[in-house]
Each structure stands twice: as structure tokens, then as C-alpha cells.
């Protein structure tokens, strides 16, 4: 196996990428024998930077861990600090947090669906999905002021209220997605060519999902009923009835393949719409933040001592932040973990024994950063000849396979 690391010429900072990384595959003919994962090209030392910042400054740093999960990281971080310092969040803020987090899930899942379609060679589906996604981004901009990096989370609450004028606009978006859901179901779940390309591809069994500690839709598609919103409900999720979605709800069986991951994500879009609807119907009155004066809040945090863990079910899986406060301005320890971290190892069984043309869709199926597979080294074990495939060439191979099947 080749052990050469390749520097990926994307990043280090790019709004849509979490972490560029290298994959080394060992190929026999058309099949992958094994894969070697080499992440770390985009390790920005964010936790290290957090050592020189106070708690409120870290919220904005956490938001910039990922452009797509820019509600999830501050959500988990705020919860970690609140748990450690014993700060109570007003109920209205809890509901607003959940609305924002679920809007983010809608946009993230639809973005993923578009990317997955592109990997398979359906460019028109990419345009359709991303057009559908615009609606939720516009709403997020209206509610928070930003399309990404919403800047709405604060220790003990949120920074902006959802007012009466916002409610009809939110309802309009929800109606829009109820209509769009049918389209998404038709084009992704009922289309025979997508089923042909994704069924039986990139299988992760229940055992593997459990043992490799996978999270989010990747785990749920393999039948592991694990969802923080269900298992340890927090914020407004505690008042709602949420069940982890597994693919058997739709198809009656669990195969753990790429198709099942599509099912889980498409169904979760609809679940999010229902959650937001319940939240705005039952939005409690009251304050939106427990301590509006920033200086006073920082003073309280400076005196706080203790450890806390904050968890949130992000679109890609569980985000977990660990904070240790020790009566000082900066936290003693801050550890953040994104879901892709835990979904690294499951890639290995998924990719083994797959065709080279299936690499893009299998890699995309856990919803990692898009630039991850920018360059792949292939070693032909029969000739021992090494060649580097660029992302464009790989996509060409994948598109060609779809065309072959459709013929």
C-alpha cells in the first residue's frame, strides 16, 4: 500500500469544506481491496485558539468550525457551558434554538442530496435541489441576518427573537417544503436509476456501525436507533415526540447501503418541517436570554467552576463539546467533536470491495466535506503502476457508469 501523503490544494479555509483529506486506495482490477485515510490537512487548531479567548468569543469561533453546521457547533458549545455553570435557558430561547437548528438540517440535507446527485451524474437534480434549498436560506437570513454563520446563539439564550411578523413567513416556507418533499421523494426514492446506482453499494452493517461508533444518518441507515434528540432530549426537543428515523419506515428493510442513507435524509427533511411547525405553534412567551448584559454574563462565567458536556444532533450526526471551567477568563479545556470524525472509520468497510466508479457516491454518502476526495491515489496491484486520479476524472468514471446502466 502506498503510504505517501498528498497535500490537497484546497483550503485551508473555505466556507463549504470541513476538512480536506487524502484517501489511499489499494485496487485489484476494478475493485477496492483496502483504503487508507489520511485526514489532517485542514487541522486549524481551533481548540488551541480557544485557549486565548473568553467564553463568549469562543461561540463565534465554534460557529466557524463548519459553514454548514454553523448552528450546531455553537448550540453544543452553549449547552456545554450552560451545563457546566448551571445557567438556565428561558423556554422561548429553547424553542428559537430548535427552529434555527432544524432549518439548518433542512438546508444541509438538501445540499447533500444535490451533491449526491451530481456524483451520480445527474446535474439537473443538483440544480433542482439547490434551488429548493434557497428558500430556507432566505428564511434563515430573515430570522438571523445571515445565510450561514447565523450568530444567533448566546450563553443562556439567543440574540434575536422570532416576532409575530416572522411567523407567516416561516409558515410559507414550511408549506413550500411540504410540496417540495413530494418532488424530492419522487426524484430520489422512486427513481429507478438512482436505486440502481445506490442499492447494495457501500454497505455498513449494524454491527460495524455500532462498533465503529458511527453517528447520525450514517448510523441510522444501518439500523442503529441513535439520535440525541430522541435519546437525551434537550431544549424544545424534550417537549416534542421525536423518533430516530431508520430506513425500514419507508422501505420495510434495513440494508445499510447508500440508498438507505438517502431515505433517512429525505425523511428527516420532512421530520424537521414537522418539528418547526410544532415549535412555532407552541412558542412560549418570555425572555430570549437569561442575562442580556454581556459584562455581567462574562463576570458570572469568570467565577464559574465545573465541567460540562453539550450535545446536539447536527444534520450529519451528534456534535459534542466538552468544556472545563476553572474560575478564569478562558476555559481550561475546550474539546469539540464534529460528526465526520466518528464517521471516518466506517468508510473503510463501506469502501472495501466496491468499484472505482462507486467511490464518489460512497464517500459522499456519509455527508463529509465535499473537497475530501479532491485527489485519490490508485495503485493497480497487478501492474504496481501508480496513477493519481483527479476529482474530475473520478466523477467522469461515475457518470459513465450511470450512463451504462441507463442504456
Amino acid at each position, binding site marked *: 500500500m502506498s503510504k505517501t501523503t498528498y497535500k490537497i490544494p484546497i483550503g485551508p479555509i473555505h466556507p463549504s469544506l470541513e476538512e480536506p483529506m487524502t484517501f489511499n486506495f489499494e485496487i485489484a482490477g476494478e475493485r477496492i481491496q483496502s483504503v487508507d485515510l489520511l485526514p489532517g490537512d485542514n487541522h486549524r487548531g481551533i481548540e488551541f485558539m480557544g485557549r486565548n479567548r473568553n467564553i463568549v468569543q469562543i461561540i463565534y469561533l465554534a460557529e466557524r468550525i463548519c459553514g454548514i453546521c454553523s448552528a450546531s457547533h455553537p448550540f453544543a458549545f452553549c449547552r456545554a457551558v450552560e451545563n457546566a455553570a448551571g445557567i438556565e435557558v428561558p423556554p422561548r430561547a429553547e424553542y428559537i434554538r430548535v427552529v434555527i437548528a432544524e432549518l439548518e438540517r433542512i438546508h444541509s440535507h438538501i445540499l447533500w442530496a444535490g451533491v449526491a446527485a451530481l456524483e451520480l451524474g445527474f446535474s439537473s437534480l443538483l440544480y433542482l435541489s439547490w434551488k429548493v434549498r434557497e428558500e430556507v436560506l432566505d428564511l434563515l437570513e430573515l430570522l438571523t441576518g445571515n445565510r450561514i454563520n447565523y450568530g444567533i446563539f448566546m450563553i443562556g439564550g439567543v440574540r434575536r427573537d422570532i416576532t409575530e411578523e416572522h411567523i407567516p413567513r416561516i409558515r410559507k416556507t414550511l408549506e413550500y417544503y411540504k410540496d417540495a418533499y413530494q418532488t424530492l421523494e419522487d426524484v430520489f426514492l422512486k427513481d429507478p436509476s438512482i436505486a440502481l446506482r445506490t442499492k447494495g453499494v457501500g454497505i455498513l452493517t449494524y454491527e460495524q456501525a455500532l462498533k465503529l*461508533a458511527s453517528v447520525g444518518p450514517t448510523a441510522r441507515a444501518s439500523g442503529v436507533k441513535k439520535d440525541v434528540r430522541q*435519546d*437525551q432530549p434537550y431544549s424544545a426537543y424534550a417537549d416534542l415526540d421525536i423518533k430516530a428515523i431508520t430506513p425500514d419506515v419507508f422501505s420495510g428493510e434495513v440494508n445499510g447501503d447508500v440508498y438507505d442513507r438517502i431515505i433517512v435524509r429525505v425523511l428527516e427533511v420532512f421530520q424537521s418541517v414537522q418539528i418547526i411547525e410544532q415549535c412555532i405553534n407552541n412558542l412560549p412567551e418570555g425572555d430570549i436570554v437569561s442575562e442580556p448584559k454581556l459584562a455581567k454574563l462574562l463576570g458570572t462565567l469568570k467565577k464559574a467552576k465545573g465541567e460540562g458536556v453539550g450535545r446536539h444532533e447536527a444534520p450529519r450526526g451528534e456534535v459534542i463539546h466538552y468544556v472545563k471551567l476553572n474560575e478564569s477568563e478562558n476555559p481550561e479545556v475546550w474539546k469539540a467533536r464534529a460528526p465526520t470524525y466518528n464517521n471516518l472509520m466506517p468508510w473503510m468497510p463501506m469502501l472495501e470491495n466496491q468499484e472505482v466508479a462507486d467511490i464518489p457516491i460512497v464517500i459522499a454518502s456519509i455527508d463529509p466535506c465535499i473537497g475530501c476526495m479532491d485527489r485519490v491515489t490508485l495503485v493497480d496491484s497487478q501492474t504496481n503502476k501508480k496513477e493519481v486520479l483527479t476529482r474530475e476524472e473520478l466523477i467522469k468514471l461515475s457518470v459513465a457508469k450511470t450512463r451504462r446502466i441507463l442504456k
Partner: protein
Amino acid sequence: MKYFNPEELLSFLKENLPETILDSNILTRKAGVKQEEFHQIWLEVKKERFRDTVKMLMSLQFPHIAIIAGNDTGESVDLTYLFSIFYGEKFKEISLNIKVSLDREKPSIESITDLIPGAQTTEREIKEMFGVEFVGLPEMRNIFLPEDFPKNIFPFRKDQKGLDELVQKES
């Protein structure tokens, strides 16, 4: 499978693991308008007994490991393993955070990758960032740091102050 509440889980661990738990604490917080409770258990266990603790958890349900958080206190390197157990049912899950204190001069602990293969990524990260030796870890290469990174520098130890110092040391 039987679900335990946090008190039951703690007493189960205390009963079955004598001379293991140094410190324990149950943190209860409330969520939502209905003020439903959720729980986090914080444990500190002896380093030698950590593997047995994980094995004991495995007899209940396959524990999900989120990550290991490292902390260099100046005297010791403390690792906090963030587990969750009893997932699958509403309100049943318990976050279980197990702290192990290691000698700072030569931090070493047994790997749990043979029990939970998914722990490999996080053990490799702690190995290169804090210089902790995991006995039995199958993959010894760096994961986030480059392969040619100086072997005696551990960036997340508190005596490392940032890039300038690292560059000077190397040149």
C-alpha cells in the same frame, strides 16, 4: 436489555468494580417547558481499572464513545472519555464521562480499540497531541499532524504556546 437510571448505574458500577472509582458525581439538568430531567455521570477511575470499567459497560449495552478530551494540568495528563449508554429510547440515555489521570512524565494507558474499534481515531489524536502512549493501539501513524512533525513536541500540552515557538524549535 434492562435500562438503568443514573443512580442504579452508579451503584451497579460500584458493586461490580471494587477499588476502582475514585470520585463520582451525577449532574442533573432540566430541559424544555415540561422541565424533563436528563443526566450526566462524571466518574474518576484508577488507570489500571479503566479497561475493566469499559468491559463492565459493555455487559450492559455496547457503549458509544464520542471522544477523549485531554487536559494537561501541569502535574498530570488527564483524559476524559466521553461515553453514552442506554440509547434507543426517549429520556433513557445517560452521558457517562470517565476521567483517568496519567503521569505527566510518561503518560501511558491500555488501548480500548480491541473492545471498541471506533476509538482508534480519538486515541491516535490524543497520542500525537498529548504524547500519551496507548498500549496495544494497532495504528501508530499520526492522524492529524504531518508525518514529519517533530516527535518530541506535543502541541496540546500547556507548555506549548503556539506556532512561533514550534518553528523556532524546529529550525
